[in-house]
């Protein structure tokens, strides 16, 4: 019953270095346990330093890699190098690194979508095959072959995880295939942010010889107003207009649709995305333009924000002096980089499994979790 309640938080609190109480029952002496604890502690420190850097190096090495997938890949790397010998140890190790990873970034929502899903995926894949496997109790006491058993599970787990990451990457091209049908000849697409999925969709539409125009809303809080590398660059086939966010309402009348990416898709079908997406959604709704969100289903995350404050935003920072230049660079600004767009403002979500209404996100999530 408790597992039903808050599955994301089950394992988070268990530190991985503690020997499991149930493993006390098998024949090992206390001494062996203390050495075991020490070695795992060493390794812990080692990987602790590396998990975050692994994650960042993965992200920087491949510009097309999204945060959830990078998180999943670094967790798989970690698992393949970790000396864990029981299932529950593996899981608690995983949960621990997940929390380290989450605390290392300013905005853990997109990341947690991937890590939670991976954790869930592992649990279910461990539960489904041979039930004799998870031999925490009694398993190791039986003899040497159970250790091989566990190695087999571990291998299965890691290879399954790889498959998972591979599938997650594949999803983007599938979305592009579905979403390009929304872009017809003569349409004008407005987009914002540097979504890789939207980039892939636009590329796919260009490749299928669709004639359309693009309006790109640039982010004025950063110094550069260039197009992000993830989106196609202007060409004869694709004329692009770059407008500041202040011109969105003005430009919307000439736009046929708004196409956005997302960092996370939340339980009620709303999205969490770069700051400014919400107001874009409000404007598009007011102008009666459809808003399509392209997101892989591994971005679905089991959180349910009720307001902007629930996505980790900080309250308004009032300033009593008229000094300039205070607006940028503060740590709070970094945290407020994202906002929450409620489901009412979203026409449809385009995922690799098809086009969904915002309402059906919850259903998809329930399918994954139960």
């Amino acid at each position, binding site marked *: 019953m408790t597992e039903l309640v808050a599955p994301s938080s089950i394992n988070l609190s268990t530190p991985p270095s503690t020997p499991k109480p149930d493993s006390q029952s098998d024949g090992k002496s206390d001494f062996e346990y203390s050495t075991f604890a020490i070695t795992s502690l060493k390794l812990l420190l080692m990987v602790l330093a590396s998990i975050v850097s692994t994650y960042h190096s993965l992200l920087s090495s491949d510009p097309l890699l999204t945060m959830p997938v990078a998180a999943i890949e670094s967790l798989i790397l970690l698992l393949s190098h970790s000396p864990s010998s029981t299932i529950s140890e593996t899981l608690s190790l995983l949960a621990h690194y997940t929390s380290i990873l989450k605390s290392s970034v300013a905005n853990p929502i997109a990341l947690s979508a991937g890590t939670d899903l991976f954790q869930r995926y592992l649990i279910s894949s461990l539960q489904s095959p041979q039930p004799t496997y998870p031999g925490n109790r009694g398993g190791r006491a039986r003899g040497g072959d159970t250790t091989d058993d566990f190695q087999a599970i571990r291998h299965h787990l890691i290879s399954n995880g790889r498959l998972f990451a591979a599938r997650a990457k594949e999803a983007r091209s599938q979305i592009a295939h579905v979403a390009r049908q929304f872009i017809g000849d003569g349409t004008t697409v407005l987009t914002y942010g540097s979504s890789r999925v939207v980039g892939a969709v636009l590329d796919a539409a260009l490749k299928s010889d669709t004639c359309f125009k693009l309006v790109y809303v640039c982010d004025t809080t950063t110094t550069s107003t260039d197009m992000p590398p993830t989106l196609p660059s202007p060409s004869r086939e694709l004329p692009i207009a770059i407008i500041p966010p202040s011109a969105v309402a003005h430009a919307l009348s000439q736009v046929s649709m708004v196409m956005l990416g997302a960092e996370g898709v939340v339980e009620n079908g709303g999205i969490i995305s770069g700051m400014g997406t919400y107001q874009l959604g409000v404007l598009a709704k007011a102008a009666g333009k459809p808003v399509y969100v392209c997101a892989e289903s591994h971005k679905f995350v089991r959180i*349910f924000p009720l307001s902007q404050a629930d996505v980790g935003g900080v309250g308004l920072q009032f300033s009593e002096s008229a000094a300039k230049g205070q607006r940028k660079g503060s740590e709070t600004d970094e945290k407020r980089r994202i906002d929450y767009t409620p489901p009412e403002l979203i026409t449809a979500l385009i995922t690799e499994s098809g086009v969904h209404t915002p309402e059906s996100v919850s259903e998809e999530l329930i399918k994954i979790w139960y």
Partner: protein
Amino acid sequence: MNTEVPPMGQENAAAGSTPEKVKETISSSKAKGTPKLGEDLKEPELSKAELKKRSKAEKAARRAKEKQEKATIGQPDVPNHTQQDQTIAPEPNMRNPASGAPGTKQQKRRRSSTANPQRQIPIRTLEPPAPTVTPAPKKDNKNVALFSHLYGHSRRSTMAGAGKDIHPAVAVLGLKMSHYIICGSNARCVAMLLAFIRVIESYSTPPGNSLPRHLTTHLSSQIEYLVSCRPLSVSMGNAIRWLKVKISEVDPDKPEENAKQDLCEGIDGFIQERITVAGQAIATSATERIQDGDVILTFAKSSTIHQTLEKALHHGKRFKVIVADSRPLFEGKALARQLANLGIQVQYCLLHAISHVIKEATKVLLGAHAMTSNGRLYSRCGTALVAMTAKEAHLPVIICCESVKFSDRVALDSIVLNEVAPPDELLDSDEAGSPLSQWKDTPNLQLLNLMYDLTPADYINMVITEYGSLPPSSVPVVHSLSMNT
């Protein structure tokens, strides 16, 4: 009551032109009425309440007769023994759907404007009006016609007439429910299941029967009695459905003692899992939604909301609570008192002040009687108003509801699916001089005491269940999930 037939005959004779048609309509609508009156058929002797009602009705009719001296027909319609029949009597022109009871007011207005006020002029009917029929709803139908399908039978308030196989625990429970001593979806469901444990414990299969087959019918009669006290809640319905499946799965070869013990343990487990633990789980996740400085608005009383607020307090959250309440049950008083005793700052108001207090509130937490499959909330009358006001004020509306309260029914309005409580509950019992005290004798006055209303899914932001927090659109998914496990 041998006067019952003659007046009808007289009426028919008076109607003259189309006696057969009138008869036809009466009989057909009577036939229509009978299925609803299933209880009357099952209970040949009338309960005290019904006898009382009948004599009251007779009295009223007599008074009305004296009043209306102008009436050409000697005898006004004598009240028939069921309420359904009463609806027929004053309206010979049942064919006209527009002149059904909801239109009586309108009809009267039209009638008074015509030259001959004595004559009822049927609207939109081709047949010439029966010349001498006086409409004379001398004995008003006190059932609101729009909700006539909900009246069914009057609520049992005594044990008289209960079948001999009704278990004492069930008999007592029925009365407690009828008098709102046990009230609230969860409380009623738990109390019913506990009573059923007693029933099963004292049950022994009669010779020649098998437990799985006979116990179900035995329980059905208990359930029937409970229904006659007060209609079942959705949670009770779900629990009964589960229990009947459980009973039918019992191996007939199993020794009776073991089978009974298994069933009782199963029921205990059901209460534990679906209500107790589910409630705790909901309280835990709902507590996370309460932040320091919040002002929580709630309506009436929900055990889950009480649990949530209590838990939030224990977690050190600092918040205020506004309890909105309404007549006639004033359930919110109990909640306000309990919360105040815990040390929470509570503001109590009635429903009419809602648009005022909503300005201070930051979140709305509501309990549920049931959630329908289209994501609508079926809860105490007045909830929809609170949710609508909150939506208007852009406040998040959070429903705390165990999955046992989810229903596979779809409801679009609160007319089709509802419960009508005795209208006398609307009167102030302590005020003898209440202007409504004579409402039964006041013509053209009907009282309607609805128990529930339906809140559209648009007004609901979140439903917290033991499966997590969901948008209302996920109710059917969780319902099927919870019924399969």
